């Protein structure tokens, strides 16, 4: 990005040491991304409550601001001002670190997401593997939270979500590999470019997209796969013992992961930021918000499935489908 090169050069001319000047642009980029995540998550929490409300023929939050638009802001203030409670039986360090371990990778993933032709923090040529590697962290943070809470509901919730994540990560990654095969690159920017020169990959990857969508819902711990927080059985899952800011951080991570999923889905299968007339960023956000709405729609429409059905669907349904899809994609790429 030219702006950041200019910023860097300006700092060097002002006599700032080179290493410090090198540090400034990445820091500014991270801050922008962090702000983007925070603001969007606040909006998404409000949006989720509104969507849920209207789907159940009620209004959702209405009191704070017009149509409750600043409800999330009020919630944030409440959460920040809450007392920081660490239950006495917990494994202190692990308990404190778990939300951070959860949020850090969810944040870092945004580094490689292309918001526009030049609007990307860092275009890595291993972006897809980078994302897969970072999202695999989530499992550990769940286990840390669940185990350190010293509470059987937390532990059971953590075990459930871990089993779920491990099962669904395999078909998810395989369905993503098929897209990488088509584009001939692991860089998200190049995948968008390849789609601009041909067509949206949803046209040749409908099966891959379905596998990706289903597996992502499971990865996000969202209904119909939200077994880890099945209230009737488990209170609230791995985050039962958390409150205040730490709980907010876990909640934030969930929504950050939701944005990541929507961004990756639109980048891999729906041409990312490309589109006519409107500026690229707007196209990107439209697509992202469409997928976020889709996920919310699914959540408030479908009932939760059982644990055994969950495992069966993952290993006996999605995994073979994703492998078949990969094999056909390979053949297609060869004869293309």
């Amino acid at each position, binding site marked *: 990005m030219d702006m950041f090169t200019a910023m860097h050069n300006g700092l060097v001319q002002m006599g700032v040491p080179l*290493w410090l000047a*090198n540090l400034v642009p990445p820091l500014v980029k991270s801050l922008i991304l962090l702000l983007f995540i925070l603001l969007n998550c606040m909006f998404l929490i409000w949006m989720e409550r509104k969507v849920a409300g209207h789907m159940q023929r009620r209004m959702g939050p209405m009191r704070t601001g017009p149509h409750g638009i600043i409800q999330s802001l009020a919630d944030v203030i409440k959460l920040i001002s809450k007392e920081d409670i660490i239950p006495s039986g917990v*494994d202190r360090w*692990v308990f404190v670190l778990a939300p951070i371990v959860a949020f850090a990778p969810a944040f870092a993933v945004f580094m490689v997401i292309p918001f526009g032709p030049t609007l990307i923090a860092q275009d*890595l*040529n*291993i972006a897809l*593997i*980078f994302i*897969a*590697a*970072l999202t*695999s*962290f989530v*499992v*550990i943070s769940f*286990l*840390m939270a669940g*185990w350190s809470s010293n509470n059987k509901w937390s*532990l059971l919730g953590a*075990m459930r979500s*871990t089993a779920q994540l*491990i099962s669904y990560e395999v078909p998810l990654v395989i369905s993503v590999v098929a897209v990488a095969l088509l584009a001939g690159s*692991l860089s998200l920017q190049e995948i968008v470019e390849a789609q601009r020169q041909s067509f949206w990959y949803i046209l040749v990857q409908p099966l891959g997209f379905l596998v990706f969508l289903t597996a992502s819902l499971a990865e996000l711990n969202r209904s119909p796969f939200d077994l880890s927080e099945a209230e009737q059985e488990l209170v609230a899952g791995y985050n039962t013992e958390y409150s205040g800011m730490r709980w907010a951080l876990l909640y934030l991570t969930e929504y950050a992961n939701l944005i990541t999923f929507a961004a990756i889905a639109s980048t891999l299968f729906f041409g990312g930021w490309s589109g006519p007339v409107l500026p690229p960023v707007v196209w990107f956000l439209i697509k992202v918000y469409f997928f976020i709405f889709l996920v919310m729609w699914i959540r408030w429409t479908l009932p939760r499935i059982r644990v055994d059905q969950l495992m069966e669907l993952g290993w006996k349904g999605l995994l073979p489908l994703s492998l078949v899809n990969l094999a056909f994609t390979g053949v297609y790429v060869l004869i293309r």
Partner: protein
Amino acid sequence: MTVTDWVFLAVAAVTLFSAYRVVVSRKIMHAALWLGLTFFGVAGIFLLLGADFLAAAQVLVYVGAVTTIIIFGIMLSTPEELRGPSPEAGSDAASSAAPTRRSFLPLVTAIGFAAVMVALVNRGEWPSPPGSVSTDTPRLLGEALFTRFVIPFEVASVVLLVALVGAIALALKEESGQ
């Protein structure tokens, strides 16, 4: 010293410290978590060496999968299996051997391993760092794996498959034996 050197020192210190904590942690769960940090530190060193693909694979496989499986294993074990024989209940032999096992043997092993490594490093001829490394590491790795090293690659896959089938066979045997 350049910035890269400082970063290397920091990453190496984190890696070594967490590796040390893996050995001395009394709670096995903490040891597993420290092990995850060690793997992460190693990935950081790969990254500093310009092996970005390797670093990502290291995080994906070791931090994401191996550490999780270890933690799972710990959680599925009974407390007795984890704590080992408690002091009063354990036999004399076990309790007298415990301090030795904890301090003396690991030290000897570590010093021996370090000596071998130092000897090897001093002997080896280290090629000068290559002038320009291509940034397209996945392509280079892929080409190398599927042309020159295709047989070792396939053998490794078969070994993994055998391990997978073996693990399932063992688990099934245990289940039917109960």
